[in-house]
Structure formats: structure tokens, C-alpha cells
């Protein structure tokens, strides 16, 4: 995967993870809020129902109280008595004093509709009410509470009228109720900033002022009273301005009037825009934490993935290299076999010619020396070519290692013995630092010998004349470590990369075939170990061979 692809992958992971984190969270938040809002609405409705019930009881009590007083007074008195304005005034003041006010005026009307006596701020004596609807209703029903109306005084008011009868005939005691006091009781049901309470009659006409509808008394309320049932009823309505209004209504005054309490449902319901700064801060911190965690964990995962991919690529490269080596090995074996036979024939023919040259007449020939030298060159180069094929076959040979218990120190000592003479001639000192505590390991003795021989031979060649080779052994928890150091000319970086490649050599053509280290590498690999080289030009070289103390299954297989 290329770099931009990792970036796209990382971005996608982040987006998906954030979506997975936020979507359920949002849904949960919404569900909780919805549940809360629902409970809140129910509570508001309950409160409104309670309030409207309580207020309606107060209003009914107010009306009933006055009805009872007027009724009792009328029935216990007489027309003649209350026709006296001083008696009527006394009654008026008594009622207002006892009930805390509420009556605007009090009048006595006889059965013909003539206003006989009057106590109040207007002068209504002499008016005749026979044509007025309420008069006839009182005469028929005995007691009557009117709707609010303008009447002769051209002011909104309503009246409570009771019929009484005595020897002089039927008469009516009529009281006008102060709509202000009445409205004050109604407004006790108002709550909050948007709460409203008012009374409408069965035709929907306001009987008391509405606080927010800006409706005066006697103005149409715009409400349909038929939507409210006989008991306390809650009606919901959404206005054009988007307000969710809740109306609670209860019929009062013998079902003639409807007390309506109105409230905006959302008034006290907290909305997201009402959130406080600290709540927003906490929310933002949580949000940030989720985003940061997502970005960091995604980054870590993608990095890990990238690392794995790289390892896989390396492994692939290694496998390809191994395959390449195997193919090369096969080819090398084929080439070596094909060259070996003609080489054998050339060598034999050259030998035969030499045999013939030994004869007397040839020896006397003028060109004997030339022949002899030519043959010598042929033999020399056949031998050189033979060495190449020999090494090629050694490289190609896929002989499985023969495992036995091997003492590495012993193998190294033996190898150094081979080279001792050669080293002495070239004035090379060989230092050894063997760790006697290293255990024997399972490995292939002869292949290891070839490995050490190759490396030390290279060290001798690198030093040429005068120098030191240091061979050390040691171990760590899992491996034996063998260091072979020389004080030779070192390996330049460009060469270092290729030293384990087959047929790569820096030696003179007749000295190296370029297969020694390649074979070494293959052997060490087969034995489950590793070989590394550290070198700087002019400062010598150190080969480190690491061999496992115990064989892995892979090596045994």
C-alpha cells in the first residue's frame, strides 16, 4: 500500500470510528431528552389541572357565597324593608364588609321591572328592566347569574339576582359584582411568564380579561368552548408562531362559564440553547477526548499495519531472494556439469600431449620449449576452470546438513590449524578468545568448518601482510556468537551490500570465484543462524556468526 493510500485509509477509519461513537450517543441523548420532555409535559398538565380545579372551586365558592347571602337576605326580608335606601345601604355595606368586597352595587326591583331602590356608584333608580332578558330569567328561575354585559351603565359587569316574594308580591334583589375582584381570583391561576387564566362563556366571549391574548372583557376569545368536556380537560394547541400552548379548562357557575388556564409548554422545558457555559465546556471536552482518542488509536493501528506490511514486504523480498538463489544454484550445477566434461577431456588431451613431448625426437625440436609452455598454460587454466566449477557445485549442492553434537571451539581450533602455516608466512598473528563455558550444539561440523575457513581465508587475504586476526566465541540467552575480526583493509559500503551475492568478488581473477561468502551465507542460513558483517574501509572487518543453541523446528524440518 502506498503512502497516500494509508492516509486515505486512516481518514476513513477516523470518520467511521467517530460516526460509530457519535451516532448512538446522539440517539441516546435524544431518547433521554425526549423521555424527559414527555414526563415534563405530563407534569405540566397535572399541575395545570390541579390549578384550574382549585381556581374553579374558589370562583364557584365566591359566586355561591354571594348567591346564598343574597338569597337568604331576600327571603328573610321584605320589599318594603329594603325599599328603604338606608336599609339597602346597610345590607350592602354588611355584605361587602363580611365578604371582603366584591359588590359594586345593590338594587331592588319590583315584579314590574321598576328599579325601586339602589345603592352604588350609578344612579339607576327609575330604570325599567322588564324588557331585559335577565329580568325574565330571574322571574322564571328564582336565582340567576348573568354573563358579563354592558347594560345601562356602559361598563362590563355581571349581576347576581334573586327573586323573593312577600305579601306585596314578587321582587328582586340584584347585586352587581365587581369584575375586577372576580378577575383577580381568576388571575391566581396564572403562572410563569407566559401563563394565562381567563373565563369565557359558552359562546366563547371573554368574561374576564386575558393576559396575553390582549382580549378585553366581552371580546371574542377565539376559543371553542365545546372542545372542553364536562370535567377538567386539557387541550393542546400549537399556535402559528410555533408555541405549543396547553389549555386546561373547567366549567364553573353551573356550567355557564369556562375557566381556562393557558401555558406555553416549552416555557420551563430546558432546551439545548439554554445550556450553561460549564455544560458546554464539559461537552466540548468529552467531544475533544473522543476525537483525540480516535485519531491517536487510529494512527497507532495504521502505523502497526504499515509496519506489518513492511515486514511482509521484507519477507517477500527474502523469499524472492531465496528463490533466486535456488534457481541460480540449479543453473550453476547444470553449467558446472556441462563444463566439467570438456574440461576433463582437455586436461586428458593436454596430458597426452605432454606424454608425447617426453619422447626423444620431440625434445630435440626447436619449438619444444614453446610447446611445453603452452601445455603448462593449458593445464594451469584447466585447473583454474576446474576450481570454478568445483565451487559452483559446492554452492549448488543442496545436501542437507548432517546434524551432530559440535564443539564450536574445537571446530575453530582445527580450522585455525589449517591456516596456521599460511598465516605465519604472511606475518599474521592469530589471537583467540574462546569462552570455554559454551555448550556443544547440534550442527554440521564439516559445513561449519567450511564457513570458518571461508571467513578466515578472507581475513588473511584482506590483511595481505602483517596484521592480526582475532577469533572470539561467546553466548547469550539463545545463541552462540562467534566474532572473527581482522585488521585488514576493510570493505567499502558499496561492496558490503553485495559480498554475500554469488560470483561477486573483489579478488584477482585467479584467486577467487566469488562463491565463498555466498556458500557461507547459505550454510549459516540452513543451520538456523545468521551472519553479519561490520566493516569500515581501512579499519578492518568483523564477521559475526550467530548460531542457535537449540535447533528450531524449521531447521530440523
Amino acid at each position: 500500500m502506498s503512502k497516500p493510500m494509508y492516509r486515505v485509509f486512516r481518514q476513513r477509519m477516523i470518520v467511521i470510528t467517530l460516526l460509530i461513537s457519535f451516532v448512538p450517543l446522539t440517539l441516546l441523548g435524544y431518547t433521554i431528552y425526549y423521555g424527559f420532555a414527555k414526563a415534563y409535559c405530563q407534569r405540566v398538565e397535572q399541575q395545570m389541572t390541579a390549578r384550574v380545579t382549585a381556581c374553579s372551586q374558589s370562583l364557584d365558592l365566591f359566586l355561591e357565597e354571594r348567591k346564598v347571602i343574597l338569597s337568604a337576605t331576600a327571603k328573610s326580608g321584605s320589599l318594603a324593608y329594603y325599599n328603604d335606601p338606608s336599609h339597602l345601604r346597610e345590607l350592602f355595606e354588611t355584605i361587602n364588609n363580611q365578604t371582603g368586597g366584591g359588590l359594586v352595587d345593590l338594587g331592588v326591583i319590583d315584579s314590574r321591572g321598576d328599579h325601586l331602590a339602589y345603592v352604588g356608584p350609578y344612579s339607576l333608580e327609575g330604570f325599567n328592566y322588564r324588557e331585559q332578558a335577565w329580568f325574565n330569567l330571574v322571574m322564571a328561575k328564582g336565582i340567576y347569574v348573568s354573563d358579563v354585559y354592558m347594560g345601562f351603565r356602559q361598563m362590563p359587569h355581571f349581576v347576581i339576582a334573586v327573586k323573593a316574594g312577600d305579601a306585596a308580591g314578587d321582587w328582586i334583589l340584584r347585586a352587581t359584582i365587581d369584575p375586577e375582584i372576580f378577575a383577580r381570583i381568576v388571575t391566581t391561576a396564572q403562572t410563569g411568564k407566559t401563563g394565562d387564566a381567563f373565563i369565557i362563556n359558552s359562546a366563547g366571549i371573554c368574561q374576564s380579561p386575558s393576559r396575553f391574548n390582549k382580549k378585553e372583557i366581552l371580546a371574542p376569545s377565539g376559543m371553542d368552548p365545546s372542545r372542553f368536556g364536562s370535567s377538567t380537560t386539557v387541550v393542546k394547541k400549537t399556535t402559528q408562531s410555533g408555541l405549543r400552548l396547553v389549555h386546561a379548562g373547567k366549567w364553573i357557575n353551573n356550567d355557564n362559564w369556562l375557566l381556562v388556564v393557558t401555558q406555553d409548554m416549552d416555557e420551563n422545558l430546558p432546551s439545548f440553547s439554554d445550556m450553561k457555559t460549564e455544560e458546554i465546556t464539559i461537552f466540548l471536552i468529552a467531544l475533544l477526548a473522543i476525537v483525540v482518542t480516535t485519531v491517536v488509536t487510529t494512527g497507532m493501528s495504521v502505523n502497526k499495519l504499515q509496519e506489518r506490511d513492511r515486514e511482509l514486504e521484507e519477507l517477500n523480498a527474502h523469499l524472492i531472494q531465496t528463490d533466486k538463489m535456488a534457481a541460480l544454484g540449479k543453473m550453476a550445477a547444470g553449467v558446472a556439469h556441462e563444463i566439467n566434461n570438456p574440461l576433463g577431456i582437455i586436461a586428458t588431451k593436454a596430458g597426452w600431449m605432454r606424454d608425447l613431448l617426453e619422447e626423444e625426437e620431440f625434445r630435440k625440436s626447436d619449438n619444444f620449449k614453446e610447446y611445453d609452455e603452452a601445455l603448462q598454460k593449458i593445464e594451469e587454466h584447466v585447473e583454474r576452470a576446474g576450481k570454478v566449477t568445483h565451487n559452483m557445485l559446492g554452492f549448488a549442492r543442496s545436501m542437507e546438513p548432517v546434524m551432530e553434537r559440535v564443539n564450536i571451539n574445537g571446530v575453530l581450533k582445527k580450522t585455525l590449524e589449517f591456516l596456521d602455516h599460511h598465516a605465519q608466512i604472511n606475518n599474521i598473528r592469530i589471537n583467540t578468545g574462546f569462552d570455554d563455558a559454551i555448550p556443544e550444539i547440534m550442527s554440521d561440523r564439516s559445513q561449519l568448518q567450511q564457513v570458518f575457513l571461508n571467513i578466515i581465508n578472507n581475513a588473511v587475504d584482506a590483511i595481505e601482510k602483517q596484521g592480526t586476526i582475532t577469533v572470539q566465541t561467546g553466548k547469550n540467552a539463545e545463541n552462540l556468537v562467534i566474532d572473527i575480526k581482522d585488521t585488514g583493509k576493510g570493505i567499502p559500503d558499496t561492496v558490503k551490500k553485495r559480498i554475500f551475492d554469488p560470483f561477486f568478488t573483489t579478488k584477482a581473477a585467479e584467486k577467487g570465484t566469488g562463491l565463498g561468502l555466498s556458500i557461507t551465507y547459505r550454510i549459516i542460513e540452513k543451520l538456523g543462524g545468521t551472519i553479519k558483517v561490520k566493516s569500515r574501509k581501512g579499519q578492518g572487518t568483523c564477521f559475526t556468526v550467530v548460531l542457535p543453541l537449540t535447533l528450531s523446528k524449521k531447521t530440523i524440518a
Partner: protein
Amino acid sequence: MEIKVLVVDDEIDFLETIVKRLEKKGLHTVGVTSGEDALIKIQEKYYDVILLDIKMPGGMDGLDALKEIKSKQPLAEVILLTGHGTVESSVEGMRLGAFDYVLKPAKFEELCEKIAQAYMKKADQDNKIRKANIQQLLRFPGRVFDQD
């Protein structure tokens, strides 16, 4: 008594030359190019040393030929000529009774040395047999000869 050598190799150029060189060294040498021909030759004449190429085309390879030769002439010493790829076969050949093997391309000197060693062993063997035969011949009841 000249040493009798049979060389078996399918590479005719090599065969001819090696035969000539061994002849020049004074060995009685015969060359053939297949295992089958070798078996015919050993029935005609007795050979001291047989140089046998392990890898030969055709029906009979070196190891098959070796088995036949050893069953027909157990006292003939066989030296195997082998390439790198057939070293294991050579080891197997030695288990089957071959005297030794020589890696190709072989140096003539090395070859001569191996033939000499093989011939020595063969001669030793012959000597022992000869002695045993003489002992057998001179064994009479009541008479005792020295061992040497």
C-alpha cells in the same frame, strides 16, 4: 606381468586418450563405452583394475555395472569416476565393493596413484589366495608347515 586395466566411460574422447596414456605407462588397457560392453569384456579376459564412470547414458549406469562386475569378477578392483553431483552414488558404490572414487576432471597423476593402490590391494589379495591354495595343496595328515 603387466597390469590389466579396463576403462568404462561414455565420453569417447576422454576414453581414447586415457587408454593411450595408460598404455604408454605400460599398462595393458582396454576401453569400452558402456556397462554392457564392460561385462562382455570381463568375460573374455581377467582385469586387475576397472575404471568405471558412474554416470552413463543408456540402460546400465555405473552402479548397476559395478554390481554385475563384482558378482562376475569379485577380485577385480573397481575405481569409480564421478562428478560432483554423484558423490553420494560413489559412497554407495564403495559400500557395494568399489575400491575408491576419483572426482572428475581427474588429474592423471592421481588416477595412476589410485590404480597403483588398487593393484597393490588386488596383488595382496591374490597373494593371500595363492598362499591359501598352496597350503591346501601341501596339507597332508601328520605333517605341519610353517605359516610363512
